[in-house]
């Protein structure tokens, strides 16, 4: 196996029989490829040298659920969202259509400071992890994460709004399908001097390979 130079947690091997890719995250490993014989050989090798457990087909990796079908691969964090909503006791709340109010500009130290800033920090941290499969909330999350050092009541309300939005769109997930064309497309956009406090700009971009969003 060769370690990838561009992503150090990826290992690969190409041969005439096919290819094998191995992705490592601390103590979790995902194996994939077209060479089934070598994959089982590699599995055996890993089991022999380390104490490992083979969980067969990929279903759950780092809190992300993976489902495979003929149409493609779907990744979702449904269980993670449900746990998050249960923790915040918002499971029975009314859902909203947008993750953030477009007319409200949040500022630091706006309103009463929160009595429990740790809870806010935990919540925002969890939302940041959720942006992996829900890029639609990434802007709203980036806004609320600016107030982590001194969260106020207004900021917590914004977080609650995001959670209510997620509640209303639980079924949304990322689909990696088979598309005919191969091509890398990148969309960029910026907002010029949008911050009311220091006139900084907000920028964003997304990259997709053959129509499948990757970053």
């Amino acid at each position, binding site marked *: 196996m060769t370690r*990838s*130079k*561009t*992503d150090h947690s*990826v290992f*690969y091997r*190409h041969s005439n029989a096919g*290819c094998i*890719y191995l992705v490592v995250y601390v103590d979790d490993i995902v194996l994939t490829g077209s060479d089934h014989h070598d994959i089982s050989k590699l599995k055996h090798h890993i089991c022999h040298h380390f104490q490992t457990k083979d969980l067969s087909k990929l279903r759950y990796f780092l809190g992300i659920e993976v489902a495979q079908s003929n149409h493609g691969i779907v990744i979702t964090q449904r269980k993670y969202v449900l746990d998050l909503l249960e923790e915040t006791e918002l499971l029975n709340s009314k859902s909203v259509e947008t993750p953030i109010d477009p007319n409200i500009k949040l500022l630091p130290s706006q309103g009463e400071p929160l009595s429990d800033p740790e809870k806010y920090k935990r919540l925002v941290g969890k939302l940041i992890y959720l942006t992996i499969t829900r890029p639609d909330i990434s802007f709203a999350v980036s806004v609320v994460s600016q107030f982590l050092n001194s969260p106020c009541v207004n900021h917590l309300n914004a977080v609650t709004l995001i959670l209510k939005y997620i509640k209303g769109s639980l079924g949304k997930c990322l689909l990696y399908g088979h598309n005919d064309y*191969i*091509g*890398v*497309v*990148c*969309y*960029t*956009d*910026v*907002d*010029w*001097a949008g911050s009311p406090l*220091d*006139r*900084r*700009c907000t*920028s*964003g*971009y997304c*990259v997709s*390979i053959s129509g499948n969003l*990757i*970053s």
Partner: protein
Amino acid sequence: MARSSAETEYRVMALAVCELIWLKQLLKELQFGEVTQMTLICDNQTTLHISSNPVFHERTGHIEVDCHLFEKKLHLETSRLRLLIQMIN
């Protein structure tokens, strides 16, 4: 703080170009087929003009670094990486 919208646009495009270059290397290493053309889409008219016409460059001192990174990659057309700037509206 950015004083022109072209500057901000260039900044994010330079960031995106960095990611695209990384992605291209990764795809090449994993042998996911040859990526000959990558499309970078932005919606800023000024940026499009600056990129297509080198005459403007005397007046773009303030965005020099990002612009340079971008232009360098843009002019590498012969060496496989080709960035297309398109207008979306």
